[in-house]
């Protein structure tokens, strides 16, 4: 019953996003909302591995940029359409996630985190030296003409991102409420005990890294059309790694709602700060808020709300 309501809610959100582009014509709104929606996808993807499974990934930028550069390659080589770009970006980053999954055999805790950070650096260096996709100086991407039903391409990208965000959250919801999610939670709590209780830990970890990577690649795939100019330092920006970790931490890592709440709050705050104060303030905001939450509410907003509700009912 609850599932049906949630499914209905998801469809309503997608339709509302589409309807909004009929009514409101302020391009900045779509430009800013796109970023927040993109972070909902990234934070949700991060949380599948970091929150559910307990493996901290600092290399979100690597998966995101890989999705973006897969798109650039396909646009240049075949002028491929957006749906194909999104699928391809997801698959390539998912493949990278699969590889990272096998790293967890040997690397745990902080060593895994360092390895993912190194991965982003290595990939960025490779892209910098790959002239076909623009190398260090970047590349201009020309947007297709406006799409059917949409008056501007940014509005179209916005609607696409609404859909992707809803799909990402639905995937996280499904994992969380399935036997896979319970197995992942056991791994997070105690990997050795999980294995001894029959949980196929390696298989599940590889599943988590692959799905997480896939969704991050999906988030990155429309990025070249969004900015129309992509250079390695923007696609591999450390902001992606920091934000997609901070948002679930602030929202709460144990449920699908956490990353969404975190992404909306933090993403909005960053967009407002960019306009009203300066764009350099973004990471400072994240840092301060994250420190505050780690100290005062380590379970995030969702955890905090649950605790308050429990106290009231007690």
């Amino acid at each position: 019953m609850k599932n049906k309501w949630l499914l209905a809610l998801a469809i309503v959100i997608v339709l509302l996003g589409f309807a909004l582009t009929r009514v409101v014509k302020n391009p900045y709104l779509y430009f800013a909302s796109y970023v927040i929606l993109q972070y909902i996808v990234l934070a949700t993807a991060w949380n599948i591995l970091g929150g559910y499974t307990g493996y901290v990934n600092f290399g979100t930028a690597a998966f995101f940029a890989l999705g973006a550069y897969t798109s650039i390659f396909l646009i240049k080589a075949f002028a491929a359409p957006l749906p194909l770009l999104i699928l391809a970006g997801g698959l390539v980053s998912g493949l990278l996630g699969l590889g990272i999954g096998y790293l967890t055999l040997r690397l745990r805790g902080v060593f895994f985190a360092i390895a993912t950070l190194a991965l982003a650096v290595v990939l960025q260096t490779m892209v910098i030296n790959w002239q076909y996709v623009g190398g260090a100086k970047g590349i201009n991407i020309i947007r297709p003409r406006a799409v059917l039903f949409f008056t501007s391409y940014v509005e179209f990208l916005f609607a696409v991102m609404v859909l992707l965000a809803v799909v990402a959250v639905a995937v996280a919801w499904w994992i969380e409420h399935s036997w896979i999610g319970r197995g992942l939670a056991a791994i997070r709590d105690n990997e050795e005990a999980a294995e001894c209780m029959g949980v196929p830990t390696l298989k599940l970890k590889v599943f988590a890294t692959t799905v997480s990577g896939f969704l991050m690649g999906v988030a990155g795939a429309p990025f070249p059309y969004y900015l129309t100019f992509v250079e390695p330092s923007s696609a591999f920006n450390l902001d992606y790694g920091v934000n997609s970790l901070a948002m679930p931490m602030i929202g709460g890592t144990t449920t699908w709602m956490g990353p969404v709440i975190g992404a909306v709050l933090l993403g909005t705050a960053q967009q407002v700060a960019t306009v009203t104060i300066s764009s350099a303030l973004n990471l400072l905001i994240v840092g301060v808020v994250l420190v505050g939450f780690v100290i005062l509410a380590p379970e995030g907003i969702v955890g905090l709300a649950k605790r308050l509700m429990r106290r009231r009912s007690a």
Partner: protein
Amino acid sequence: MPGLMLLDAQSVTKRFGGFNALTKVSLQVKEGERFGLIGPNGSGKTTLINCISGALRNDGGRIFFGGKEITNAPAHQRTRLGIVRSFQIPKPFTSMTVLENLCIPLEYAAPARSHTADVAAEAMEILQAIGIDSKANVLTTGLTQIEMRKLELARAMAAKPKLLISDEAMAGLSSAEVDDVLTILFRLNEHGITVIMIEHIMRAVMRFSERIAVLDAGEKIAEGTPEEIMRNKEVERAYLGE
């Protein structure tokens, strides 16, 4: 089929760098048996258990379970075959309630497992049998030491073991609590579960075990009934020195 070999570990060897933790240790445990594994600290008991349960891979020797070779099987498959161990230091799933802790093995390990069945009711039955059902909906962080040990056993039971390996389930418990745990293990055995007990509390091992093997410095130095072990000069030497 009483008398059949359930576990057959043949000359298991394990090295950590240059250190021989286990040297050609063989262990045969019959179906339905209560088997004791003792030895001084550092003699390799837990290492042997890790090799049998799959947490570690042995460098030499072969291991059979129910006639099937499992030398290279990953730990979770061995659990599904029926080798279940409890940990010396309890390792509960800390974000879950006591009941949810049991649902993991019920869902993943039990041979008739299914991801849709109502495992919660079954988990509750096990908690009742062990006597910690009053704590079913408490997070594991709120448990006392003895409750934690019982949870460890309950969770092992939920995996539906054929062979239960209890790794020092009684260390640090009071003598009444030791009796409590012993009763549980006896009852499990009556239900047909083979038990290997690793323990330092001699009173408990001697009372519980039908057969005992003694490890010292990674080698098996004796095996026999509790009476034989108590009379064994070499065992005495291993524990007390010359």
